[in-house]
């Protein structure tokens, strides 16, 4: 993860009394967990789009941990509390468990690729896999791939978040 001098992730910061949420727009794959789970805090139609007063710290942590990328991460404001957890452990818990949490076993056997159909959104692959597209063959290692299902992306075949703008409904 790219960090500032203080070791914190680059990008925008949003604070409440207990935690700081970091937002790194370039890493977002539009999996849409944040605003589907907690629109009171994460509202893409609002500026600023993160309102830390919209919910409890516990709930915000839960939803930030659902983010499959490093687009949303969080840390305790009290650095003492951060000593028990590394940056890696503060996020990605849901997507990495349990099959993706054990990199030490990666030499033993092939880990399954996680395939998630997001509600009214893209299809998201996570893990190790070979990606074939338009004659290109690429080996992806611990990667994330978000493919458009709504047809409105301007970066085909990749999701660019357009499903939200057009109100795509998965039937």
């Amino acid at each position, binding site marked *: 993860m790219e960090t500032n001098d203080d070791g914190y992730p680059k990008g925008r910061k949003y604070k409440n009394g207990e935690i700081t949420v970091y937002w790194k727009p370039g890493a977002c794959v539009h999996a849409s967990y944040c605003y589907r789970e907690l629109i009171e805090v994460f509202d893409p139609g609002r500026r600023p789009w993160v309102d830390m007063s919209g919910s409890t710290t516990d709930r915000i942590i839960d939803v930030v941990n659902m983010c499959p990328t490093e687009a949303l991460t969080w840390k305790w404001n009290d650095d003492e509390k951060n000593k028990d957890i590394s940056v890696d452990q503060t996020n990605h818990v849901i997507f990495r468990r349990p099959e993706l949490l054990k990199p030490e076993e990666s030499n033993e056997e092939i880990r*399954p*690729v*996680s395939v998630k159909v997001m509600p009214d959104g893209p299809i998201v692959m996570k893990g190790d*896999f070979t990606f074939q*597209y338009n004659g290109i063959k690429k080996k*992806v290692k611990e990667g994330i791939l978000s*493919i458009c299902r709504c047809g409105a992306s301007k970066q085909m075949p990749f999701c660019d978040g357009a499903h939200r703008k057009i109100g795509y409904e998965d039937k």
Partner: protein
Amino acid sequence: MNDMETENKENTLPIVEIVEGGPLKITGKIIYRDLKRDTSGTPAELKICLCGRTQNGPFCDDSHDDAK
């Protein structure tokens, strides 16, 4: 020996493929979840509709052929 092992491993990596004019095809070891329909599974192959014509979403039912 090591080269061969590496190659074997590559060969068994799951494959995610966008079929031209067709679905997203995934083969290999898969853990699948559909968060809207609340279904999940570990199929050996998955074909996900990308054209929007399927009557069996999110899966491909070859309806993309109708447009040809």
